[in-house]
């Protein structure tokens, strides 16, 4: 906690310095400023537009917009949160335009107040190690499960679990309150467990006991 906190504070100081220098005329440093967030920009946009080409375009537009508006960044939020807010807006605009073109209504899923999110009930889960991700079909299965989540859940899941943003940052970036973030995250995780766990248990769990003795982390 303290180590991570110190690193975070050092990073923010470093960013504040970079921002000041970009504004002072060393504009090429903006490349360095956004480099740590390339993945975040893309995944956030993708969680909204669900299309590689559009997501990439949103990320580019967001970076250009962030550069043009850098003087307006006041440092009262983290630079990363500010950047995510920009890409969320870009992606939402793009989605609205695409929907209008197709004359479809925005399919904003409504949170139902009650609603049982029952997990898949199984026993004896054998951990699937990360090395299993070398298999393309496992990656494809996980991608599809996330893509199949309703939009409002997919977006919260992407910011919280794929990008490890905290509840407050996620709420700020998506313009919802923190409780909604928690509820949606819970449902997203339960939906993923339900759609993935039975399938993964059958197909991806290692068969041989011997494998486990080699786990370096146990």
């Amino acid at each position, binding site marked *: 906690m303290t180590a991570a906190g110190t690193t975070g504070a050092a990073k923010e100081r470093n960013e504040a310095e970079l921002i000041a220098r970009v504004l002072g005329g060393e504009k090429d440093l903006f490349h360095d400023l956004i480099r740590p967030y390339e993945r975040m920009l893309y995944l956030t946009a993708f969680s909204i537009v669900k299309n590689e080409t559009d997501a*990439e375009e949103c990320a580019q537009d967001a970076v250009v917009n962030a550069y043009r508006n850098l003087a307006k960044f006041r440092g009262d939020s983290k630079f990363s949160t500010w950047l995510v807010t920009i890409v969320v807006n870009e992606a939402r605009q793009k989605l609205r335009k695409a929907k209008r073109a197709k004359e479809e209504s925005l399919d904003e899923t409504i949170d139902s107040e009650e609603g049982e999110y029952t997990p898949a009930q199984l026993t004896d889960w054998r951990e699937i190690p990360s090395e299993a991700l070398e298999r393309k079909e496992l990656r494809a299965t996980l991608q599809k*499960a996330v893509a199949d989540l309703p939009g409002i859940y997919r977006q919260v899941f992407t910011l919280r679990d794929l990008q490890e943003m905290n509840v407050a940052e996620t709420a700020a970036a998506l313009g919802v309150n923190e409780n909604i973030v928690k509820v949606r995250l819970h449902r997203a*995780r339960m939906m993923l*467990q339900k759609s993935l766990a039975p399938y*993964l248990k059958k197909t991806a769990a290692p068969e041989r006991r011997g494998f486990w003795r080699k786990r370096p982390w146990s």
Partner: protein
Amino acid sequence: MELNCKHVWAHISEYIDRSVPAEVREDIERHLEHCEICSAVLDSTRNILVLTADNRTFELPVGYSERLHERLEKELGSAEVSQDDES
């Protein structure tokens, strides 16, 4: 308090995030000690989160980073950072 499985499921996400109140956490842990189903629900959920968050699962398009910086380079060459609001 003795929790039933449904109560535990309702708290799974907060439990994973370590944001459940201490007394609820203890109740959940007592339940997990003897409930194989809830233990498997928790383990599978955690496992799925680790797998989906792995950078290999969601890869960036090939050449994405290069194109992003090229676009930015064009912008940097053509514009000045605006120092005031809208002008």
